[in-house]
């Protein structure tokens, strides 16, 4: 019972991460019809926004220690972050501590710009090209972005901790009258879950309840007719691309404390996010979110010891197995629209 509850929590958390990553992809891929292999790279850049903000905040003034020496016998360098000098040690330290949430503020405009530039500068020319060409160009772009990050930040993972108040975990079990420590869950993962829910809700609301969203939805359904009505759909699609990049970036920023990012983190999520989008069904936003949660929960259950001992290795393949079963029983994924990317 506790184990199941624990894995449900886990699944919800994993699912929210998958859903959030897939959401950005489905905006571009599921609706604009662009096979965007650079989506993982956008997620990665988001995570590195967090790294950059942390690095900037910890830029330090160097003074020499009179006594201690470093590994070569030279006087030890003592680093005091500039922010601590400017805003006082306490506030400065707090700023550094909160670098990940702060990074969100920076990531949104940066990712919007990256998304728009990407669309205007590159993707625009590929709307009418075969999907194969889109794959090649976006994959090339992904490699380039990834290598640039590797060049400036190295290949090693970079620790980007969450603010100190979110350390440790919340005891659900104790709240529900079970023994302590039976069902616990880390605070930051709960924050991630809530954050994902808010972002997903916001994107839905934006598309559902605004005129802009209405036009975009119309454009997805029939781009030509909307164009004939004299509406500049291209401009709106550009904005959509920026939005998708921002969503991917925010997913990345918030994910940084969960797993220290490295330049490869985007590629690790790329395949998974495609699977989630397609299982959800092409052209369906709710489908992608639903698939994200479904696969997250299934993965959590598959990694339970009881199930692993029954079918060894099931946790390695569960996502793909589930994808196959779903795609074979439901021709267009969970909630796919007819005719989107079917040929």
């Amino acid at each position, binding site marked *: 019972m506790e184990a199941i509850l624990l894995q449900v929590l886990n699944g919800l958390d994993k699912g929210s991460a998958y859903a959030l990553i897939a959401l950005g992809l489905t905006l571009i891929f599921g609706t604009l019809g662009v096979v965007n292999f650079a989506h993982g790279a956008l997620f990665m850049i988001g995570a590195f926004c967090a790294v950059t903000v942390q690095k900037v905040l910890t830029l330090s003034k160097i003074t020499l220690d009179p006594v201690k020496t470093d590994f070569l016998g030279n006087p030890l360098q003592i680093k005091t972050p500039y922010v601590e000098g400017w805003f006082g040690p306490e506030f400065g330290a707090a700023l550094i501590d909160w670098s990940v949430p702060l990074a969100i503020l920076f990531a949104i405009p940066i990712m919007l710009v990256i998304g728009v530039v990407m669309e205007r500068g590159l993707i625009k020319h590929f709307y009418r090209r075969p999907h194969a060409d889109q794959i090649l160009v976006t994959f090339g772009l992904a*490699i380039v972005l990834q290598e640039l990050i590797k060049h400036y930040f190295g290949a090693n993972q970079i620790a980007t901790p969450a603010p100190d108040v979110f350390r440790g975990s919340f005891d659900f079990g104790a709240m529900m009258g079970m023994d302590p420590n039976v069902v616990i869950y880390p605070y930051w993962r709960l924050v991630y879950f809530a954050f994902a829910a808010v972002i997903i809700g916001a994107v839905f609301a934006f598309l559902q309840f605004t005129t802009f969203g209405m036009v975009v939805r119309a454009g997805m359904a029939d781009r030509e007719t909307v164009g004939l009505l004299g509406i500049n759909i291209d401009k709106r699609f550009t904005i959509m691309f920026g939005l998708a990049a921002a969503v991917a970036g925010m997913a990345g920023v918030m994910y940084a404390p969960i797993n220290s990012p490295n330049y490869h983190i985007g590629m690790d999520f790329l395949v998974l996010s495609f699977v989630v989008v397609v299982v959800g069904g092409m052209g369906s936003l709710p489908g992608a979110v639903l698939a994200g949660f479904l696969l997250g929960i299934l993965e959590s259950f598959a990694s339970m010891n009881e199930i692993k001992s029954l079918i060894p290795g099931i946790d390695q393949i569960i996502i793909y197995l589930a994808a196959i079963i779903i795609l074979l029983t439901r021709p267009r994924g969970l909630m796919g629209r007819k005719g989107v990317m079917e040929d």
Partner: protein
Amino acid sequence: MLGIKGKDLTLLCVVAVLALCAPFILNPFPQSSAMAQFNAGYPDLMQRFVIFGIFAVGFNILFGLTGYLSFGHAAFLGVGSYSAVWMFKLLSMNVIPAIILSVIVAGLFALVIGFVSLRRSGIYFSILTLAFAQMSFNLAYSVLTPITNGETGLQLSLDDPRIFGTSVSDTGGIPVTSLFGMEMRETSTLSLGDWSFQFSNGYYLCAVLLLVSFYISIRIFRSPFGLMLRAVKSNQTRLNYTGLNTRPYTLAAFVISGMYAGLAGGLLASMDPLAGAERMQWTASGEVVLMTILGGAGTLIGPVLGAGFIKYFENIFSKINDNVLHQWFGGLPEGLENAVVWFTEHFVGSGWNLTLGLLFMLVVTFLPGGLVEGGTRIGRLIRGKSKRAEKKAAQSKPAE
């Protein structure tokens, strides 16, 4: 000749000449020159060019003709390799049974996966194939280790049975792969002054099989079967409305291209008897997709060019380190030398991926039909110019 004619025959002949003379063509620079770094004429890389050429040619039969984009073809390559190595372990070091088995096993594997995956089309098909391949990879890496030797990859060992061969060679080592006694790794070197050209038995076996594969691929492209596959690509729905069941055709194409992949896998193992699980990872499947698109999907020669292009960067550019760069630019003044080396370093050595990524983008942006398109354009440019010159001479007026 051989049931093909015209352009196709010319193309086959060109490929044959290129493949047979590869040891010369790929080694254009003298050994002691600084450019020798760019020589690609050593057995391992030549074998790789040809083997991945076969893989891509096979992939193109599915993707180029039917438009079905499989993202799991590496699984067949991997299965082929594993079968071949198992043959070396159990049967003998002769490559023939190994290659035959790898083609058959990969074909059966493709039949099963194709039968299931082809129930869907478009992106749904791609994800189904991807899912199968990733499952194979993950299992091969972990649970199936008794069969695949997991992370390390399946290798030969001294206590393998090899019932028709010997477990241990005369010198006390593991016997080497051979074709009826002709060792695959045996290489003759021809030294011509400062040039040295390597002729490897293994390479020529691969090259002959490439020619056979290429020939079969031409025949498929020009056959009624190939025409049917093209019809599937242009409009499958219409075909279905005419009462035609397209599934057997697409399934046949899938199995054939799976067998090509199996052949490539078997050859990889025959040249170097080790089968690593990474061969089945999605990145490997992605690589053959990239090769085909980069070279020119749907063209005969494109995939081979794409395969050569990517493997060249992976093996040649990754080996250029700052030491080499300093040798190259040693003639420049100190400050300038360092600046040039610093700049170039980004694109070679550990930065080889960056160069590859940039080239992907450039090629696909400016040459929509891939490398083949580039070739055609150059050809047209040369021919166009000469034509124009002729016309100019005749009419004394430029023809525009």
